[in-house]
């Protein structure tokens, strides 16, 4: 049995919708609603799903960058939900995040040197020389040059900025990195450079990634296991081969069939879903997918299917498999 480095249990994050002059609570957005999974040491767990399904919120809530509404998160067997801010700050050294928009996440007024050495200082690297040395090392690790240290973010291309973001995340030798769409904003030819770099670093430093993306081919390329989210919930989770070869959940099947295939000789039958993704502030009753599901049955409107293991290592939330 591989040991999980991270275990997420029944994680929930509801955002209040407020309005009016008094900021009265009008309702809530169930951005993440009862999500459970674990990530093994050294593994890459991919998370896919459509816009707004709660991928980023899951990533931020488990790092407590936003406070979860409910649920538990174990990092190296320690429940981190109730630990003090001080303890959490220490733990952040081991748990890092890389964001989608490499530009917005880098302070435009700081040099690359300052951006990368900031976390070093926070975690106690007092000597300036030591920090400079480390920055140089990190820049080389991510394929940049030492002289880039004195430049500002706007002087770099999107791909290079993402490299800076990666260098910053790596600064304190973390164990787990939540990668929130790290290549989505990049061109194909640059995207493959960054994916290769991330794999190389994973092998070199035995990192564990939670890799969030909406591009199914990217996730397939990089992940060991893949989880599929829909409307705040995890609907399927299994090894990548199993998921791509034998998707069980009707949503996963539709999602996979909708990916346009580049090879003109390998075009596939498409499942075209009707309608729009429902709003997480007013999710459908029963199975959240029943409003678009081609297989929906009567029971689906009333009872929310449980997320459970239907085959070895294959978790699905659907009444078809009960």
């Amino acid at each position, binding site marked *: 049995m591989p040991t999980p480095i991270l275990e997420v249990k029944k994680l929930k994050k509801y955002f209040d919708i407020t309005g009016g002059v008094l900021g009265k609570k009008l309702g809530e957005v169930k951005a993440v609603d009862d999500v459970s999974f674990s990530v093994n040491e050294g593994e890459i767990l991919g998370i896919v799903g459509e816009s707004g399904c709660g991928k980023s919120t899951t990533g931020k809530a488990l790092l407590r960058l936003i406070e979860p509404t409910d649920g538990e998160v174990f990092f190296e067997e320690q429940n981190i939900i109730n630990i003090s801010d001080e303890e959490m700050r220490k733990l952040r050294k081991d748990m890092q995040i890389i964001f989608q928009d490499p530009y917005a996440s880098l302070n435009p007024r700081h040099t690359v040197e300052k951006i990368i050495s900031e976390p070093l200082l926070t975690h106690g690297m007092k000597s300036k020389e030591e920090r400079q040395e480390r920055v140089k090392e990190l820049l080389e690790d991510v394929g940049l040059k030492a002289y880039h240290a004195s430049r500002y973010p706007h002087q770099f291309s999107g791909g290079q900025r993402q490299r800076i973001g990666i260098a910053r995340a790596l600064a304190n030798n973390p164990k787990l990195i939540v990668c929130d769409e790290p290549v989505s904003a990049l061109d194909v030819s640059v995207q493959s450079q960054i994916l*290769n770099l991330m794999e190389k670093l994973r092998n070199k430093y035995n990192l564990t990634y939670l890799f969030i993306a909406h591009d199914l081919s990217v996730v397939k390329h990089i992940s060991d296991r893949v989880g599929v989210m829909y409307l705040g919930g995890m609907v399927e989770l299994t090894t990548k081969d199993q998921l791509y070869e034998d998707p069980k959940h009707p949503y996963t099947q539709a999602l996979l069939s909708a990916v*346009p295939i580049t090879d003109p000789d390998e075009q596939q039958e498409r499942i075209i879903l009707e309608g729009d993704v429902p709003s997480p502030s007013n999710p459908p009753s029963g199975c959240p997918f029943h409003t678009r599901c081609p297989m929906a049955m009567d029971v689906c409107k009333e009872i929310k299917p449980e997320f459970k293991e239907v085959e070895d290592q294959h978790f699905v939330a659907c009444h078809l498999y009960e």
Partner: protein
Amino acid sequence: MRLTPTFFIQLFNPSPQIQVRKISFVYFKNLLEYIHNFQYINNHIVPKNSNISLKKAGGVTLEDVVLELNDLHTHFFTDSGEVPAVDGVSIKLHKGEVVGIVGESGCGKSVTSLSVMQLIPKPPGKIVGGEILYKGENLAEASEKRMRKIRGNSIAMIFQEPMTSLDPLFTIGNQLIEGIRLHEKINKKEANERAIQMLHQVGIPRAKEVIDEYPHQLSGGMRQRVMIAMAMALNPEVLIADEPTTALDVTIQAQILDLMKNLNKENDTSIMLITHDLGVVSEICDRVVVMYSGQVVEEGTVREIIKDPQHPYTKGLIRSLPKLNEREQKLYSIPGTVMKPSMEQVGCRFASRCEFAFDRCFKANPELYSLGEDRKSRCFLHDEEKGVEEFANADLRS
């Protein structure tokens, strides 16, 4: 076939066995039928219902091209200098054809399409050379009044960001109905019905309610579909779609591509589809134009571009894609990053990233070499014999 004396002689005397003198009733009947089977387009007599393109039939060039960009140059005059964003682009769009334009961010795809619509922000932008021929009329010289007519009737555009073309102050219904009534003489009520029907067609649930909502109340995918409904309401001859699905989820993208395919099949609408997703291209396009740094670097059918790319950039691009149904350890990647188009650039624009680059590539920019009918590639390797051999043998699949 041209309207020439020989043509008439042939018409009256299709076979030498029949003497013009002996015109019988039967011959006259045949002749009428024969003439009936032709139509007159752009000064040319064309066989009706014939799918032989005129080019093949008689070497005529005007044929069924609806939109033709000829050596288009659009530059931006900025504080930091002149940017040749579109630098000599030629693209042809035939009737009923779907042409994909692909290329990395900043290579000039949007500027090309905005140039066609005459919607380049001026200043700093300006079309400094070339022609944009819509059925023979040069839009680069058309008046704003004429352009408004073209934009309302003949060429519709779906923008990369739908918010830019939906008016936030008017309901979806207002905007759709206005478009429909510009076009058809029907009353408000009928137009309203049509608008609802169109929203249904583009897969918008609750069409009856959505029609009274404002753009900000809709999701990105719904806004994009409203844009498509509006474009379809115009029943345009040409649809220019700038990354219509890039911001959308794949399941919604599949719906929209389906819609565009229908529009193309049912109304014979020609579509110029800008995207950076080769999967999307493969799904709906007939031909592909690959751009790099303001220029066309390769052109061919979808199959040719994806299965047999010729330009080193296209080759690299296709190799860098992670594939859904293939297992590979390490992805290929093109080193370096795209350079902004610049006036100072000498040599091949791809040279700094190209694994095949040789001396000549740094001294002059290659022309677009013709490799067959509508098949082109901008690379010196098509010229240098030695290079070509090495290039052809390079194992790009590994």
